[in-house]
């Protein structure tokens, strides 16, 4: 139980950071903005406490000291930031009222039921498989066990003992190790299970509430339930791999960047988006690619204001750069000469198309559902913001190119990696796509006459 409490504590530590950023300031309705704020605190808190505790372990602290110092430092900094910036959010409320649509309850109900089914399926899997999928116990959680002791943590980056993926970033194992250090029960499956559940449930909820606030509640709940029709999310969520946390961090960073644009590239929100992107880069190599893509897009869109994004990213970026530079074992690099091998490119493309087809079950395939939504409701005019769509689309392209130029010795990745990669990009793609769709709105009701006499006099006048 202490392990689970540690995860909830990390979530709570993230909250003043989100609050201080004022990313959700001015959004209406307020209760929904508060929920979005709380949801954003989850990836911030869980990832930031894990990243800093690992950095302190690397710096020479014992595992419990590293975990407690990281929590204390982040809690104090977050609360100080919140106190200092608490008046910054008292700006006039400029957000327009969401459009009234009296059938909003229908997608809300579908989203709610879909989410319950998702949680039920998650527990059905973990009841029989508390150890997660193969890579969870043979690599990710194994490395987490090494990280629970100052005398053994370097084994998490030592490939000599047959450890797979010893060069992979350590953020996700650090999340799990932190829970085990608090709980005192090494290998307690409740910690990776609960952490996976939090990150995976946060993905549809973040997409749903962000769309509900940025566009309209009906579009938010529709976006959420379309996401819940995608196979990779269901298949990967209980597997306890790093792909689900990375997907959550990527989505959260993109959402906060979109929230920053709404307030003329608010520096607080941009800094939070930068922090989340750098944490994604500390979690998996795909996160690092996303970091570069979002940085470039924001420089293009926000110009000089993107400096705040870079500033916010710096603390976690140091870890993301330092890990492969000074700590991770050197592995076979990418082989750009393979780009000449068009047959290999064809295999990658075919596997990508296969994974696109397997993204959902007919007729509830997410691509078909989104296409139907965009066709019936139409796209916004003048067009909505396209840049959030460009970032995950380029991330997919980068993933495919990386698979193309991956050395043949690990060529099996072409067959297995795409399903996992889909869980990183499906939510950001859907979020950005639904941002471009028109919101459904009910026609205004004809005004009722105030009383019968007024109606009579009106009729008399008409005669």
């Amino acid at each position, binding site marked *: 139980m202490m392990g689970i409490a540690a995860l909830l504590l990390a979530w709570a530590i993230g909250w003043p950071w989100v609050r201080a950023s004022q990313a959700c300031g001015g959004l209406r309705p307020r209760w929904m903005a508060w929920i979005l704020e709380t949801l954003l605190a989850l990836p911030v808190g869980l990832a930031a406490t894990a990243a800093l505790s690992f950095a302190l372990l690397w710096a020479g602290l014992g595992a419990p000291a590293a975990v407690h110092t990281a929590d204390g430092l982040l809690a104090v900094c977050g609360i100080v930031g919140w106190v200092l910036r608490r008046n910054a959010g008292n700006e006039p409320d400029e957000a327009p009222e969401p459009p009234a649509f009296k059938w909003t309850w229908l997608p809300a109900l579908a989203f709610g039921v879909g989410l319950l089914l998702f949680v039920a399926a998650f527990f059905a899997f973990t009841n029989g498989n508390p150890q997660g999928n193969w890579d969870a116990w043979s690599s990710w959680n194994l490395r987490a*066990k090494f990280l629970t002791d100052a005398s053994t943590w370097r084994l998490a980056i030592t490939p000599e003992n047959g450890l797979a993926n010893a060069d992979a970033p350590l953020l996700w194992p650090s999340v799990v190790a932190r829970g085990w250090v608090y709980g005192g029960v090494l290998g307690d499956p409740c910690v990776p299970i609960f952490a996976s559940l939090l990150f995976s449930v946060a993905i549809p909820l973040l997409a749903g509430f962000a769309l509900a606030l940025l566009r309209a509640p009906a579009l938010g709940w529709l976006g959420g339930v*379309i996401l819940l029709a995608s196979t990779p999310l269901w298949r990967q969520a209980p597997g306890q791999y790093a792909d689900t946390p990375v997907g959550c961090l990527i989505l959260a960073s993109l959402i906060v960047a979109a929230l920053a644009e709404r307030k003329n590239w608010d520096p607080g929100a941009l800094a939070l988006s930068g922090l989340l992107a750098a944490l994604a880069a500390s979690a998996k190599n795909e996160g690092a690619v996303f970091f570069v893509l979002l940085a470039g897009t924001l420089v293009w869109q926000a110009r000089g204001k993107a400096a705040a994004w870079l500033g916010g990213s710096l603390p976690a970026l140091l870890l993301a750069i330092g890990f492969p530079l000074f700590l991770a074992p050197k592995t076979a690099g990418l082989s750009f000469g393979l780009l000449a091998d068009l047959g290999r490119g064809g295999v990658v493309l075919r596997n990508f198309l296969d994974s696109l087809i397997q993204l959902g079950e007919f007729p509830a395939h997410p691509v078909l559902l989104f296409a139907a939504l965009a066709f*019936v409701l139409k796209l916004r005019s003048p067009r909505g913001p396209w840049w959030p769509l460009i970032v995950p689309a380029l991330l997919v392209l980068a993933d495919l190119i990386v698979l193309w130029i991956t050395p043949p010795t690990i060529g099996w990745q072409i067959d297995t990696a795409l399903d996992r990669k889909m869980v990183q990009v499906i939510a950001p793609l859907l979020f950005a796509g639904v941002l471009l769709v028109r919101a459904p709105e009910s026609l205004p009701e004809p005004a009722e006459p105030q009383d019968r006499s007024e109606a009579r006099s009106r009729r008399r006048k008409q005669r």
Partner: protein
Amino acid sequence: MPSQDHTTGARALAGVAAVAVVALFGALQQYGLSDQYASQFRDPFHVMAQQERLQPVLARIPVTEKVGYFSDLPAGDLAEQAAFAYTQYAIAPRVLVPWTAKVKPVWWIGALSANDANLAAAGRDRGMVLVENLGNSVGLYRREGR
């Protein structure tokens, strides 16, 4: 050009209702597939069982000590690879080294495939003493001559 940010009327209702219902149907389909998978595969490699089996004896072995591993499964076999990997997970943060490694640790874990395997004899053949029979043909051994 007038701003077109909303869609109204029957078109909006039809779009929202159709997508919501079909997407919920999709979630139901996914639930069915996940449930079916979960009932078919329940810890296929017995990872948790191995962890529970080894947990009581791990207190005897310092976390910095390497632990040896031998098995009678054919080398390179998927079952052998899985057994080595889940035993490594069970004893971590201690490092598990295979029988073929140059380093010869004090503590060893032997996993035999036959249900009625003679654990003590398997240890004797390798110069080890059986310290504890952990059940399911898994034994904790100590290398002799230290």
